[in-house]
């Protein structure tokens, strides 16, 4: 099962280093950079469809996971229920969930011989969104819980004094630390958009339907076209880079002056 996701970049590169030396490696990267540049400038529609799908699937997954994850994180930070420490430990464990495993679980759920098969969404983008939502939900919940707990140490007393109930305190702290929340969401987005295990299994890497950048990279790698695979990776990074630059600019215009908001 791991076969579908195996990226054997390592064995391919090590001997390149041994037999042809550093120069060959540098040439490989240079070729990939050139290819990436051509890909970006030529605006190949198939490529951009793939990029858009990557962004749409991972973006949707993060938004949905944010809705549930921020609420869960806030709640976990203020709840006094007896099992809460265990819940936090379980949540932190889920942070290490391999994406392939999430893919497998969702596949078995959505398979026609599975409980949710009648919806017929296996091998379509919604299945990929579901899988990635489950994948990043623990990240958002765990990190926002920590964020809220830390903030409450500073201002929890004041908010409670003003009359805020525990959950309201938590939500106000999420508002207060909104840029930290943005970072959490960016972390989740990074995890989602770069993973290949889950989307490969529940999406099937179907050309024009469920092929995203990461599965395209896996395919090109297995076809032996390593420079193209690398170039695709660079394209994805470039697009994500633009998103992050936009966010950084927005942050600076909102909180000018001292570096690191007061």
């Amino acid at each position, binding site marked *: 099962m791991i076969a579908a996701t195996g990226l054997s970049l390592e064995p391919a590169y090590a001997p390149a280093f041994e037999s042809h030396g550093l120069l060959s490696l540098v040439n490989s990267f240079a070729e990939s950079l050139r290819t990436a540049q051509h890909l970006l400038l030529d605006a190949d529609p198939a490529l951009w469809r793939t990029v858009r799908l990557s962004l749409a699937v991972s973006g949707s997954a993060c938004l949905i996971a944010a809705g549930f994850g921020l609420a869960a994180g806030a709640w976990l930070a203020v709840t006094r229920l007896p099992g809460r420490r265990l819940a936090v430990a379980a949540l932190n464990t889920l942070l290490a969930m391999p994406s392939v495993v999430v893919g497998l679980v969702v596949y078995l759920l959505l398979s026609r011989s599975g409980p949710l098969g009648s919806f017929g969404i296996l091998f379509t983008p919604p299945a990929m969104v579901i899988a990635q939502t489950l994948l990043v939900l623990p990240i958002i919940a765990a990190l926002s819980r920590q964020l809220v707990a830390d903030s409450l140490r500073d201002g929890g*007393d*004041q908010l409670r*004094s*003003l*009359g805020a109930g525990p959950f309201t305190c938590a939500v*106000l702290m999420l508002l207060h630390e909104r840029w930290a929340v943005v970072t959490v969401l960016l972390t989740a987005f990074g995890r989602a958009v770069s993973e290949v295990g889950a989307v490969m299994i529940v999406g099937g890497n179907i050309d024009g339907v469920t092929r995203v950048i990461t599965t395209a990279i896996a395919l090109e790698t297995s076809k032996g076209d390593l420079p193209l695979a690398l170039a695709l990776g660079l394209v994805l990074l470039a697009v994500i880079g633009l998103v992050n630059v936009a966010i950084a600019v927005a942050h600076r215009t909102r909180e000018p002056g001292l570096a690191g*908001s*007061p």
Partner: protein
Amino acid sequence: MSGDAPLLRLVAAGVHFGDVRALREVNIEVRRGEFVALVGANGSGKTTLLHALHGLVPLTGRREVDDASVPQAMVFQRPFMLRLSVRSNLHVALWLAGVARPSWNDRSAEALRRAGLEELAHRPARTLSAGQQQRLALARAWATRPDILFLDEPTASLDPSAKREIEAMLAQFASDGMTLVMSTHNLGQAKRMASRVIYLDQGEIRADLPTERFFGEHVDPRAELFLRGELTWDL
């Protein structure tokens, strides 16, 4: 119930954090219109007593409030402002206090005027100076029209001019009829402003007297040592 009934009282109230007993079985009443100063060394339980009176910590014993709810507010040594504008911070407080939306603008404008901060209404609250933020904290508390205002060393981290501004505001609140309970390190401040002084030592109330008597008589040997500034640390 009105007149001389206490607004708030603690009966045999104790607070402990784990093994540490921060407050031991205190009995205290707060009456309307009083200006109570809590004094004592660090770790004597002043902050814990304030929190207990305000209802922020769980305690053994009883906490009784006069009417169904006596509106209260608290100002801390370091003001905590949300990363919002000055005005929005006030709106959040009004929202939490259950005030109807239409009156938010008027109430916050009035509160800012009392604190001399009207010009800064749209600035991010956390860019204000420490003194300004503390005035904002007082404005925020005042906007919710509390019957009792608790203050935990409100001027401890301020420079003299900021301290004077805060004291002026507090004096104004007191003369408007608000009940204040304030912990302070500054005995001069207690003497100047309070009508009643409570001295705490190791979680117990060792003296509870009107101001003139507290600074005049010699009641508790440790209180006297404290007043003379010679309190030693060996307990």
